[in-house]
C-alpha cells in the first residue's frame, strides 16, 4: 500500500494510540477485540494499541493518559460505545494529559457493530477492524481545535406554570439566575390545583401549591406571564432569543365586583377545571382563590356581547390584544405537563353511559358534592362504585386498540394506582356506607408510604378483583329490574378465574397520563418526544433532564408520568442543571463549525444563500495582500456545522472544522480499501 507509506512520511511526527474497549463483554462477546488490537498495532503511525475491560473506567483513562505523557502519543483513537455516551469523558482524559482534546477520534463499535451483529462474530470483528481503520485515517489528519467560549445569559425561561415549572423557577431564582415563566392558561398551578387532599401527605393540594405560588410571585428575580406562549426561538445555549406572545387578559386587576360581572355573562361553556361536571362563563376564574386572582376572558368562547362591560366598564377591555415580548435567556426549562387520558367513546362504556366517569372527574365530583351529605351523582344516590385500573395505560398491541396516532399506550402511568386507593380511603371516611370494588391487574403502590394506602383500602373493605390484560373487564347496562344502572363483568383471578358480575351505580376509570399537546412547541425548540410521546431525555442515567438540544432542560410530567413529589424532585434537578450550565456566566460550544479558507474563497456567495441559519455566514469586506475584497465570514456561535455551505462552495474553500472534506475522503478510502481487502481474502 504505497499511499500509506507516503502518508507516514508526510506525518512523521504523528504518533497514534489505539484503544479497543471490551465494554464489559458488550463488545468483546461478539468482536474479537484482541484481533483488532493486533491488526491495528501494525498500522502506520500507531505507537501503541491496547484493550481494556472498561476503557472509560478511571484505570482505563489513566492508561491513555500515561501513553500520552510517557510514549508521546499525540493522536488517540478509541473504539468503544457510541460517542454520545462517553466522548466527553475521553476528551477530559486526553486534555488532562496535556493533549488538545480534539486530537482524539471516537469509533462506535458497540451500537454500530457488536449490538447489531450478534450472530456473526467473524463479520463483526472484520467490521470493527474496517471502522477502526477509517478512524485511524481520520486521526492522521486531525488538527488541534479550541472550543467556542461564549458569555451565558444568567437568565432562564421556564415554560409551564404547573407545580414543576413553579418549583424549577423558584430553585433557579435562588441560584441568582433571573427567570421568566410563561403559562399558557390564565391561571397558575396546573393539574395539581384540581386535586383535593393528595398522597402521601394527605394535605390539601391547593394549600401547599398556593404557598409555592406566593413565593414565586414574590421572588424579585422571577417574571411571570400568563396567557402566554413561546412563538419562536433562535440562538444557542447561553444565548437563546425567544419571542413570547402574550394575550391580553381583558380584565384589570382592579376590577371589584367580580361576581356580578361573572353573573352578567350569558355564555356557558364546559368548565375544564371540573372536567366538564359543571359549566362556567366566558369571563371566569378557574376556582375561588386562584392565582392570579384577576378574572380572565376566555377569548375562544367570548361572543363580545358586551354585557359584562355594562356591569363594570372600567375594569374590562373586550379588545383582544396580543403583544410580543422578546427575552434573551441562557437556558430553557420545558415543564408543560400532562393531561389525563380521555377514554374513547364506548371504552368501558365511557360516553355511552352517563354513570361512567374518570378518576379526575370523580375527584372533582367528591369536592363538589361536599362531605356532610350522601354522595349523589346526576340526581341518584351512589351506593356501589366500581373502579377500573389501567384505563389508557399498559395497553398491549393486539389486545387493546391503538390511539389515533396509531401508537399503543404501552406504558404504566405510575400515579393512578395510589391516587385511586387514596381516593377510596377518602370515600370511606366521608361516606361509610358506599361499597367499592377495585378491578385491577397489579397494584403499584411502590413509593414511600404508598403501601399504607393499599393496606387501608383492604381494611376499609374495598373488594379487590383482579383481571388479566387479555380478559379485561367490560361494562354493560343492567338488565331491567336491577336498581343499579350498570354492571361490570370480568373474570376474577383472585377467585380462580371465576366469571363475576358487579352491579354498580358509578364506574370510575383510573385513566392514565398523556403529554399535553405541544407539537408546535417541540418544533420551535427542536426537541423530540420518545415512543411514548413524552419528551425524551438524552440518557435516563447519565443525562436524565437534558434534551438533545443543549440548554433545553426537562422538568416534571412533560417527560413522563410522575406524582407531585417526583415532579418537584425532577424540577429541582432541572434547576441544578441550569445552575451548572449558567452559574459561571460562560458556556462552551463544540468547535465543529464552518471555516473559510480566504485564499480559495472568491466571494461568490453561494454559501450565504444556502445557509439555513440566521447570521451564521455572510460576505464581508476583508483586506488580503493590501487589496479590499469580499469574502465569506462565519460567526461560529450561530453556525451549527450542518455543512450546507461546504457542498455549495464551488471552490472547496469551506470545511467544517473537525470534519473536513479531506478527513472524510481519507475515511471513505480506508473503508473501501478494507472492504476490498476482505473481498480479496474471501
Amino acid at each position, binding site marked *: 500500500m504505497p499511499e500509506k507509506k507516503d502518508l507516514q512520511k508526510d506525518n512523521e511526527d504523528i504518533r497514534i494510540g489505539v484503544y479497543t474497549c471490551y465494554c464489559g463483554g458488550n463488545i468483546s462477546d461478539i468482536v474479537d477485540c484482541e484481533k483488532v488490537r493486533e491488526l491495528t498495532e501494525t498500522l502506520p503511525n500507531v505507537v501503541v494499541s491496547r484493550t481494556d475491560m472498561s476503557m472509560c473506567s478511571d*484505570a482505563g483513562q489513566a492508561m491513555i493518559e500515561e501513553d500520552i505523557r510517557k510514549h508521546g502519543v499525540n493522536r488517540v483513537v478509541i473504539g468503544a460505545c457510541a460517542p454520545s455516551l*462517553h466522548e466527553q469523558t475521553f476528551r477530559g482524559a486526553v486534555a488532562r494529559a496535556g493533549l488538545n482534546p480534539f486530537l482524539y477520534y471516537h469509533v462506535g463499535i458497540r451500537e454500530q457493530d457488536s449490538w447489531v451483529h450478534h450472530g456473526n462474530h467473524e463479520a463483526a470483528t472484520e467490521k470493527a477492524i474496517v471502522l477502526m481503520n477509517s478512524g485511524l485515517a481520520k486521526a492522521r489528519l486531525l488538527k488541534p481545535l479550541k472550543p467556542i467560549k461564549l458569555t451565558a445569559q444568567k437568565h432562564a425561561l421556564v415554560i409551564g406554570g404547573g407545580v414543576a415549572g413553579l418549583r424549577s423557577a423558584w*430553585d433557579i431564582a435562588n*441560584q441568582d439566575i433571573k427567570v421568566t415563566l410563561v403559562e399558557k392558561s390564565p391561571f397558575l398551578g396546573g393539574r395539581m390545583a384540581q386535586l383535593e387532599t393528595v398522597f402521601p401527605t394527605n394535605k390539601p393540594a391547593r394549600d*401547599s401549591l398556593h404557598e409555592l405560588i406566593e413565593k414565586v410571585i414574590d421572588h424579585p428575580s422571577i417574571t411571570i406571564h400568563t396567557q402566554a406562549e413561546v412563538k419562536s426561538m433562535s440562538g444557542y445555549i447561553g444565548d437563546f432569543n425567544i419571542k413570547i406572545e402574550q394575550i391580553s387578559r381583558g380584565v384589570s386587576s382592579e376590577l371589584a365586583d367580580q361576581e356580578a360581572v361573572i353573573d352578567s355573562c350569558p355564555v356557558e361553556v364546559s368548565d375544564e377545571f371540573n372536567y366538564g361536571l359543571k359549566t362556567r362563563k366566558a369571563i371566569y376564574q378557574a376556582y375561588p382563590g386562584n392565582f392570579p386572582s384577576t378574572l380572565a376572558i376566555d377569548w375562544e368562547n367570548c361572543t363580545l356581547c358586551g354585557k359584562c362591560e355594562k356591569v363594570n366598564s372600567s375594569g374590562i377591555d373586550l379588545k383582544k390584544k396580543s403583544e410580543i415580548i422578546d427575552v434573551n435567556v441562557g437556558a430553557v426549562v420545558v415543564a408543560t405537563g400532562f393531561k389525563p387520558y380521555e377514554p374513547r367513546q364506548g371504552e368501558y362504556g365511557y360516553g355511552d353511559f352517563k354513570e361512567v366517569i374518570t378518576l379526575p372527574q370523580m375527584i372533582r365530583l367528591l369536592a363538589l358534592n361536599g362531605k356532610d351529605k350522601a354522595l349523589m351523582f346526576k340526581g341518584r344516590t351512589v351506593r356501589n362504585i366500581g373502579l377500573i385500573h389501567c384505563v389508557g395505560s399498559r395497553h398491549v398491541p393486539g389486545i387493546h386498540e391503538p390511539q389515533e396516532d396509531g401508537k399503543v399506550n404501552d406504558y404504566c402511568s405510575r400515579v393512578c394506582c395510589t391516587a385511586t386507593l387514596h381516593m377510596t380511603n377518602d370515600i370511606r371516611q366521608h361516606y361509610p356506607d358506599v361499597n367499592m370494588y377495585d378491578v385491577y391487574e397489579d397494584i403499584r403502590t411502590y413509593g414511600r408510604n404508598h403501601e399504607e394506602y393499599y393496606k387501608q383500602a383492604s381494611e376499609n373493605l374495598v373488594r379487590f378483583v383482579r383481571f388479566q390484560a387479555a380478559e379485561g373487564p367490560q361494562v354493560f347496562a343492567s338488565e331491567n329490574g336491577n336498581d343499579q344502572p350498570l354492571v361490570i363483568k370480568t373474570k376474577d383471578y383472585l377467585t*380462580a378465574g371465576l366469571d363475576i358480575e358487579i352491579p354498580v351505580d358509578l364506574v370510575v376509570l383510573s385513566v392514565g397520563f398523556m403529554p399535553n399537546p405541544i407539537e408546535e412547541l417541540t418544533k420551535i425548540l427542536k426537541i423530540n418526544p420518545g415512543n411514548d410521546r413524552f419528551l425524551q431525555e438524552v440518557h*435516563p442515567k447519565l443525562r436524565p433532564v437534558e434534551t438533545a438540544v443543549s440548554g433545553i432542560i426537562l422538568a416534571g410530567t412533560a417527560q413522563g408520568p410522575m406524582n*407531585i413529589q417526583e415532579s418537584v424532585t425532577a*424540577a429541582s*434537578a432541572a434547576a441544578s442543571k441550569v445552575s451548572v450550565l449558567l452559574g459561571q456566566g460562560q458556556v462552551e460550544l463544540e468547535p465543529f463549525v464552518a471555516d473559510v479558507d480566504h485564499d480559495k474563497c472568491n466571494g461568490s456567495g453561494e454559501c450565504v444563500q444556502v445557509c439555513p441559519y440566521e447570521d451564521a455566514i455572510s460576505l464581508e469586506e476583508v483586506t488580503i495582500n493590501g487589496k479590499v475584497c469580499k469574502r465569506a465570514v462565519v460567526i461560529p456561535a450561530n453556525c451549527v456545522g450542518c455543512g450546507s455551505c461546504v457542498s455549495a462552495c464551488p471552490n472547496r474553500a469551506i470545511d467544517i472544522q473537525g470534519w473536513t472534506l479531506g478527513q472524510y475522503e481519507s475515511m471513505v478510502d480506508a473503508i473501501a480499501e478494507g472492504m476490498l481487502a476482505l473481498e480479496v481474502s474471501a
Partner: protein
Amino acid sequence: MATNKIKVDALVVGGGISGMQTALDLADQGYQVALVEKEASIGGKMIALSKVFPTLDCCSCITTPKMSAVAHQENITLLTYCEVDHIKQNGKGFIVGATNKPRYVDMDLCTGCRQCEYVCPVDLKNPFDNNLGAIRAIRVPFSTAVPQKVVLDIDNCILCGKCQTACAVDAIDFTQQPEEIMIETDSILLATGFEVTPKDAKKEYGNGKLLNVIDGLDMERLLAPTGPYGHVLRPSDGKEPDSIAYVQCAGSRDETLGVEYCSRVCCMYAIKQAMLLSGALPLADITIYYMDIRAFGKGYEQFYQNAKAMGIQFIKGKVAKIKEDENQNPVFRVEMVDEGGSVVEHTHDLAVLSVGMLPSFDPTPIFNVPNDTDGFIMTPDQNFSASLTMIPGIFAAGAATGPMDIVDSIMTAGSAASAASAYIKSQQNGKEESSSKIADLQKESQHA
C-alpha cells in the same frame, strides 16, 4: 493521632451513585465539596451490578466514568475508607469529625500496580462478589476501583511480609494509624444508601442455609462480566441450572419482618436478571413468583412485556416455603393465587430471593437526624422538598431516603444539590431570605 482540617461548602456522606451525583452537581457549580465513603472505593452498590434496567446498559459503562469524574473534579476532596464519627452544629453550619481508617498502605506512594496482591498467600472470600469469589488479604478492592490503591485486611493478614518485599515503592506500612479529620462545612448531604434483606431473614426460605437459594445481589455478580466464575453456576455443585425461579417480595411487604413497604426495585431487577439469564442460559426455564409486578417507571412496563414475550413465566403466587430435595434442588411450596389459592409444590435447580432494601446507616447515634418509622432518614416534606431532613442544612438523597432505583436516585441527587446550594448561598451571601424560606418549610413540616 494527627488531625487534618478542611473547610468546605458541602460534605457528602456516601459515595454510591447518589452521593457521587450530588457531589458532582455541587462541585460543577463551583462549590467546595468533601465526599466521605466508608469503603475503600466509591461506587456503592451500583458498581457491583451486571447490567441495569431498563436500558440494559452495562453497569460499569455508567458508573465508572462517574467515579472517574469525581476523582478528577478539582472541587471535590475525596475521602475513602473514612467514617463520620461526630457532627456538631456550628452556627448554621457544622463541624464534622471523621476518621480515615488505616489502609496500611501509603496512598501517596502506592501506584496500584498490584504486585503485592499477586504475592499475598492469603485467600479470602471476596466481599465485592458477595463472598462468591476469592480475593487476597491485600488487594485493590475491585478492578475499576477509585482510587486505584490497595487496601490491607489486617484482621486476616498473617504478617508474612511478602507484600512489603514485592512493593517497588515501599508503600506498605503495617504500623499505620487511624487519622482524624475535622471538616468544617456549611451543609451536609446524606447519601448513605441501603443494604439488602439478609438471606437468613426468613426461616421459611431456608434460613440462609440452603446452598441453592441465593439472593438478587448474588445473581448480579454471577451475571456480571467481571463476576467470580464467568458463568452462571449454582453453588452446591457448580452445575448450570436448567430451571431458575424468583421469589418476589422476599423481605418486603412483609409484616412479619416489620417491613411493610415495597422495595420498588426488586420486580424490575428480577425481570432484568431473567432476561439476562435467558441470554446466558438459552435453554433454562425461568419462573417469577409474584404478587404484583411493579413496573412503574419510564419504559419499565414495556420492559416487563418484552420479558413475557421472551417466554419468561410469571406466576401470581405466594411462595410459602422453600425446602430442598436430596439433590439440593430447592422445592417451592406455592399458593397459586391465580388458581384460587390451591397449594402446589414446584422443584427448581436454583432459587433467587428478590430481596428488598433496608436502611444502611442510622445517623442518630452521631447527630439527631431522625429516621422515619420505616428506618430510612425522615424527609418530612414529602411532596415539596423530599431532600430536606428534620435538620436545616442537612439534606438526604438516594436510597438513604427509602428504596429507589438508579434513575430516581440520580433525580433526587440533583434536587438535593439544588436545595443545598440555596442553603449554602443564603449563608454565604448573608441573604436570610431564601434560607428562612427553607427553614420555614422545615419548621412547618415538623409540625405536620
